């Protein structure tokens, strides 16, 4: 076994059960050797330690880390008062927290989420994100008197516990049996916080109606470059005039 990671004191070691890797973040050299603080990211794949890039962004020093299997990510409390997540590919800055941060952390399946503790009289809990984007009516339907196009407007509400960044809907679909008609989507406020709604407008050609139809909007939100970009699908019945 060849160990090349130089951290000798501290640091957080977690096991990523999905990627089958041991992740090491944080730590420092002994004070007598300079007390250098590490911000880098290392994984052990069973044979070697491999340094991953990017290192912890923005210079944050990892204080405590735990693997959250419910979201398949490692959750890190940084000294910049932000929570960071590592998805095996990259680091993402998440919500802020107050206090000096925990020195130890562990996943608690009963929460579910990551529980951290320090000797500053504070416990820290990072609930596992539960994203939910829910269709909220009513659906306002209008028909262009000239072109006959249908305009449907409604809202998608964040019913979860995390902000939903950058809702992306490639298209809306009207289904009638085996046939389908695509519509053009426009979204206002595409980053709703919990309890907030995004306003959505979809324009369909006249061929979408008339009559009762199943109307579906599917898409994603979050950082699509990372592994935390949940998907949603909403289907409702509408009566096109």
């Amino acid at each position, binding site marked *: 076994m060849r160990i090349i990671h130089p951290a000798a004191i501290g640091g957080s070691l977690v096991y990523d059960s999905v990627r089958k890797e041991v992740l090491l973040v944080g730590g420092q050299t002994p004070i007598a050797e300079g007390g250098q603080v590490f911000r880098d990211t290392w994984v052990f794949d069973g044979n070697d330690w491999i340094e991953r890039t990017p290192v912890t962004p923005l210079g944050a020093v990892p204080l405590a880390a735990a693997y959250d299997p419910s979201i398949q990510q490692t959750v890190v409390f940084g000294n910049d008062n932000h929570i960071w997540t590592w998805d095996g590919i990259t680091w993402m800055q998440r919500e*802020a927290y107050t206090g000096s941060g925990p020195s130890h952390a562990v996943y608690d399946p009963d929460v579910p989420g990551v529980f951290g503790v320090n000797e500053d009289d504070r*416990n820290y*809990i990072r609930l596992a994100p539960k994203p939910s984007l829910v269709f909220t009516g009513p659906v306002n339907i209008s028909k262009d008197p000239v072109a006959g196009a249908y305009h449907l407007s409604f809202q998608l509400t964040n*019913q979860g516990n995390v902000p939903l960044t950058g809702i992306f809907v490639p298209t809306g679909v009207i289904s009638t049996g085996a046939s389908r008609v695509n519509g053009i989507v426009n979204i206002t406020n595409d980053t709703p916080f919990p309890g907030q709604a995004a306003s959505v407008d979809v324009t369909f050609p006249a061929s979408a109606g008339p009559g009762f139809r199943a109307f579906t909007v599917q898409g994603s939100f979050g950082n699509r470059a990372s592994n935390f970009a*949940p998907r949603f699908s909403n289907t409702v019945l509408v009566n096109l005039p």
Partner: protein
Amino acid sequence: MKRLFIPTLFSAILASAALAGPLQIDFVNSTLSGTAGDTLVYTGTITNTSLTDTVFLTGVSATSVSPFLNFDTLPFFFDAPGSLDPGQITAQIDLFHLLIDPAAPAGPFVNNSIFILGGPDNLSFDIQGDATVDAIVVSAASTVPEPSPVLLLFIGAGLLALLRG
């Protein structure tokens, strides 16, 4: 270690709103497993627990916890009735499908959320019931079926017949 369990603040954590409605969703199995590329079909029944109010079913919203899981909510309208009378329960129906991306890693994906929408008429889209489902993606290598004993018996008998013939 001192004061380990003193309950104090935690920060920047947003709790999800508690939701309630008259519809109760009972899955045949709320945890399904499959390999990458599979489609999981969640089936179950919906019960209108209200003793007084008819509930119209006008929509279904679903959110997965992973980019590797894609809900298809359209099948809901293939089977679900337009409304449920007080106390009425549906037959066992396809509630929705969950498509596992071919590139999905193995592992559990829990707390995917489902909401059924409706209300007192077919123009209402309020939350009437909610539930969560889990999906477990297993590696294809662990699910390669072994030849059945009967099949092996036939193959052996065939080879024996060829040798004797």
